[in-house]
């Protein structure tokens, strides 16, 4: 089969690799009909995340048709069914899964020892996302093996198109959880840093969950326009001070809820901390650039909440934790517990409350995937979200 394969920094190739096979009783094989390039794939493309090996198949946002199931699936998934596959692999039986903390599944990471060493305790296995989280082959391919397939799936109605449901596997519930974790109240101003795909869904989720005002922060005009289309107030950080503007919009008090949809690769701004991070990163003394985190802590209203769906990979430096402590801020973060939210979100799509396809700006075949990684990373051609058709 053909798949997008990681070979190193900025080196992803469309290659022929062996077809996946049923390996465990609870496995299924899914023929991929649509998959997407996620913002967090770019951390692998830029090689900011450790634990990738040459030959790894990329992709954790995909859907398709079940073409084979193992004997342990026990009728919970049948050949021919159409499913979106969540990026987190879940056993459905461990204590964390039973509590709905699916991204913390205790059994699905087959490289548990590595994760235990690095994180202290393991988290869930993920598709196409480093050997720290299992080293499972990803979904930017014609076929994919889905472990624990009887629980690791989202059945979607035939009445909805691939474009409408594909993002149930990651970015829509990620944005939704980011807003839900912020526990938005009707009087809240919610500031969202980053208007990439997750940021766009975070903005809409914050509105749907009742925010009085949503402020979207970015520098790319296309992204800001898309945020504005949903009703957000926008701040272009290239041309105005984020802190001053947010204070202006909140009577000098700062937003109650701040959401970081940027993560470890924040843009290197002309600020002292931006340059500091870039130099330390170059000297391998720091892995992530936490400019957004610092800014959120600084501008957030005392007693407010910081929600962090943006991916961080390792070590951060000069985070003003004294300010966070004294202001009594609440931090919420984590990989998305996808299946916790998907029943509700599928219903909302069916009822026409939201159509997630708004975010798709580019569609192409798998062969064009490597080039689209660059286009997406460099934000060229108005690119916000890429969908691939294997």
């Amino acid at each position, binding site marked *: 089969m053909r798949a997008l394969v990681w070979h190193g920094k900025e080196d992803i190739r469309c290659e022929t690799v062996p077809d996946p096979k049923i390996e465990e009783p609870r496995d299924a094989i899914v023929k991929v009909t649509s998959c997407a390039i996620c913002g967090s794939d770019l951390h692998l493309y830029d090689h900011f995340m450790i634990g990738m090996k040459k030959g790894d198949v990329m992709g954790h946002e995909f859907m398709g048709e079940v073409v084979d199931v193992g004997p342990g699936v026990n009728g919970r998934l049948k050949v021919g069914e159409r499913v979106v596959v969540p990026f987190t692999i879940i056993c459905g039986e461990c204590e964390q899964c039973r509590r709905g903390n699916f991204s913390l599944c205790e059994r699905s990471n087959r490289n548990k020892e590595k994760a235990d060493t690095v994180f202290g305790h393991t988290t869930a296995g993920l598709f196409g996302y480093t050997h720290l989280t299992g080293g499972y082959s990803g979904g930017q391919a014609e076929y994919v093996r889905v472990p624990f397939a009887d629980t690791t799936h989202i059945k979607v109605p035939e009445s909805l198109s691939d474009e409408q449901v594909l993002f149930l596997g990651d970015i829509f519930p990620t944005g939704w959880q980011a807003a839900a974790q912020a526990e938005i109240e009707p009087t809240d101003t919610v500031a969202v840093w980053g208007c990439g795909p997750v940021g766009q869904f975070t903005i809409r989720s914050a509105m*749907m969950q009742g925010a009085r005002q949503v402020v979207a922060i970015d520098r790319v*005009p*296309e992204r800001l326009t898309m945020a504005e289309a949903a009703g957000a107030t926008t701040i272009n950080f290239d041309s105005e001070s984020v802190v001053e503007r947010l204070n202006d919009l909140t009577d000098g008090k700062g937003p109650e809820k701040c959401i970081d949809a940027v993560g470890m690769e924040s843009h290197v701004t002309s600020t002292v901390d931006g340059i500091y991070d870039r130099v330390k990163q170059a000297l391998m003394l720091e892995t992530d650039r936490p400019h957004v985190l610092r800014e959120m802590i600084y501008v957030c209203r005392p007693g407010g909440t910081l929600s962090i769906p943006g991916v961080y990979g390792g070590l951060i430096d000069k985070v003003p934790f004294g300010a966070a402590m004294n202001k009594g801020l609440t931090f919420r973060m984590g990989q998305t517990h996808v299946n916790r939210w998907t*029943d*509700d979100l599928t219903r909302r799509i069916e009822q026409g409350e939201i*159509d997630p396809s708004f975010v798709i*700006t580019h569609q192409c075949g798998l062969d064009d995937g490597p080039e689209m990684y660059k286009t997406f990373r460099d934000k060229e051609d108005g690119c916000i979200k890429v969908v691939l058709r294997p």
Partner: protein
Amino acid sequence: MRYKTNLSQRGQADTATYRFAQGLGIFSIVLGLFEVVCGRWLGRLLGLEDKEYIVRLYGGREILTGVAILAAKDPTPWVWGRVAGDALDIGTLACGYARDRDNIGSKVTALAAVTGATAADVYCAAKLSGESRLPLPPVKDYSNRSGFPNGMPRAKTGTAFVSEVVVETV
């Protein structure tokens, strides 16, 4: 932002040249730190025993230029600044060579390294100078992409419901 105009702004595309300039900025800071910290050792190696302050001074210059490249909206003049600094480095190395002929291997290696860096600086500065200051191609218009087919008020329900699959509440 390099392409800022009085028209609607376009975000800085991370072009190869811009990234190259950023790389030179980081290189400049790292080299500068090295020169400041190891000034005495470098001075001895390059025939500037009694003038190690020059090496440290040049290190300070490298750090300032590097910071300016990273901080500037338009790095072009600062990359040209690096070219001027390279010329100064070459001149100083030549003086060291003229003063004594010891450590000839180190001096030739240093000269070769500075020449290579100069070539990179000139290439980058010339590329940046040759780029158009006009905005990049027009932005695409996504102003009709609200994502709310029936309008925002209908979607604003205010509650996030947890799936039935969650059997225990957190």
